[in-house]
């Protein structure tokens, strides 16, 4: 991970920018976090619960999908 401050700004050396950065980093360092295992489990559960409602995942019959062409019917 790149640890250097942005070098694109002309004024990255000025005090106003540095103070803002310090304040922002303090805020970010202090937020509440959860473990990746818990976050991953939640993502998996969401997928599992909603999978059956996902037409692109499950595939729905052509008759129900307005974009899929319906097979032509032959009248006997």
């Amino acid at each position, binding site marked *: *991970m*790149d*640890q250097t*401050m*942005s070098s*694109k*700004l*002309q*004024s990255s*050396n*000025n*005090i*106003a920018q*540095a*103070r803002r*950065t*310090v304040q*922002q*980093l*303090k*805020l*970010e*360092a202090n*937020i509440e*976090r*959860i*473990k*990746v*295992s*818990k*976050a*991953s*489990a*939640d*993502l*998996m559960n*969401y*997928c*599992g*619960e*909603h*999978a059956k*409602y*996902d*037409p*692109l*995942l499950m595939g*729905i019959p052509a008759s129900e*999908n*307005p*974009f*899929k*062409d319906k097979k032509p019917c032959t009248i006997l």
Partner: protein
Amino acid sequence: MCDQTFLAATFGPCDNCSANRPLMNIYLKNEPINYCSLCVELMACQGLAPGETLASLKTESENLKVKLEEERAKLHDVELHQVAEKVEALGQFVMKTRRTLKGHGNKVLCTDWCRDKRRIVSSSQDGKVIVWDAYTTNKEHAVTMPCTWVMACAYAPSGCAIACGGLDNKCSVYPLSLDKNENLAAKKKSVAMHTNYLSACSFTNSDMQILTSSGDGTCALWDVESGQLLQSFHGHTADVLTLDLGPSETSNIFISGGCDKKANVWDMRSGQNIQSFETHDSDINAVKFYPSGDAFASGSDDATCRLFDLRADREVAIYSKESIIFGASSVDFSLSGRLLFAGYNDYTINVWDVLKGTRVAILFGHENRVSTVRVSPDGTAFCSGSWDNTLRIWA
């Protein structure tokens, strides 16, 4: 498309010392003011605590960055794809182009679905914005913008208006009328004004507010009726290329990605930058929320797509292959969040298994870069727009 003019100084009398100098356009409590750079420095120095110098602030910020990484690493106990090993693998996917929408004279840059699941608005380099009926491929409305490179377009939640903008630095809203003969350009309303190109726009939950992002490095929230700036979001250090609103009606956050390789999470009400993710190696071209709102995916010029979890505050998955060397321009999730559709500059669309991190399909068809990929609101199909001037509906 990254130019560094967003900090371009204007020249004139300083609001503070009245000397004629190059001015910096800054915001104090959301009010724009023009101070010369000397006065900006003096103002910043006055707020310094004893013993604070530029060097000490820089060391402090470096230390804080290290601390931030340590805090994040403490909770990194497992990888997403390891947890996902017990999930069933996906079968073969057969997705074909079901409709091809032809009519743009030049590169298609942006598309958006209407909530009615059948209409699509698309904008192009030639300055035209077209509203299509995706079922029949008919064009319902066409607007000619006064500028080329219309990089952003959005459908209003009600379906009664569209917003678009690009090199004109503005976002304009056009109410759509049922009368096909009516000249849409006559009712145009200019809502947003930036100091550089408009890269993305989106209506919030209603037709009344629009969120925009711009090459000037800022995002902004506007009231459509009055054109007033409600909130501005500063923090990116280069062009902002993309934004996405939280999916739930009650969430007040949105995400943005830019040429500074950062993806930022913002609080819409306070303008505060809540979280920032900087793991990409190049410009972030697209960001999209996971359907649950707890995570988001990003696509970048570094040829990877990544998944970031907001509650774990870190990147949890990376979607890449050695054979993929072209940048990803656009990403979108399927309805359940299991599939990630990503459009690339090598003319293909790759479909990724979000949980396992593997690619499940690669879709060919476009004859030039894929610039935008959007799943329909009911998840039955997705639409891709490309520099080959066409849109394709896949299902």
